[in-house]
């Protein structure tokens, strides 16, 4: 990550605009490793300002996958906090701006959930999920919504 992804200008810009970045060396003996159950590197987490975990993933990602993954994480954070308007906006941004990323079909799934939970709008949920079947037919997320009728 340090040689490919973090030096990327778009990654730098995204992180600086959206996060307070914190790096912990796993060889430092920090008690944070146990607290956040970090057993492999890289382990990337999104926390709130009190240290509560909202999203995580492991392993290297190139810039064009790393940014949408972080954007997805921000959307999931808002969803879990029940800020559905923000969640929908952030999740939709993943699909609109990074449609070919691996994060996009997952983001579309959770966008549907956010739209439903905001207004109990079943049609919005099903419409969002049909888009997964249409645009990402080979994804695991298409399998998750395979029961949705056309």
């Amino acid at each position, binding site marked *: *990550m*340090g*040689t490919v992804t*973090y*030096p990327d*200008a778009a*990654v*730098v*810009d995204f*992180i*600086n605009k*959206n*996060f*307070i*970045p*914190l*790096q*912990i*060396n*796993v*060889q430092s003996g920090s008690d*944070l*490793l146990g607290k*956040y159950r*970090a057993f492999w*590197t*890289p*382990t*990337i*987490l*999104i*926390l*709130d*300002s*009190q*240290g509560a975990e*909202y999203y995580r993933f492991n392993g290297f990602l190139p810039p064009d996958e790393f940014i949408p993954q*972080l954007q997805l994480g*921000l959307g999931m*954070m808002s969803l879990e906090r029940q800020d559905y308007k923000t969640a929908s906006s952030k999740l939709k941004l993943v699909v609109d701006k990074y449609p070919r990323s691996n994060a996009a079909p997952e983001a579309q799934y959770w966008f549907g959930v956010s739209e439903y939970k905001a207004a109990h709008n079943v049609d919005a949920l099903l419409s969002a999920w049909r888009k997964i079947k249409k645009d990402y037919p080979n994804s695991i997320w298409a399998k998750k919504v395979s029961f949705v009728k056309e």
Partner: protein
Amino acid sequence: MLKYGLLCFVISAVLITTAFAAGTQGESPTIVWEKIFDDATTKAKNAEMPILLDFFSPA
């Protein structure tokens, strides 16, 4: 005499500014990582931003 002094000042200012610009021309923005958890949470509270925590292994 005054004009000579002013001319020297202007030339010096131009040279210093040019040297500074040349020195920083190749620099691009980087991520400034916090290394202490409490510092990160304090900044996150003040900025009302989430924290991106990266557990890494040095090369």
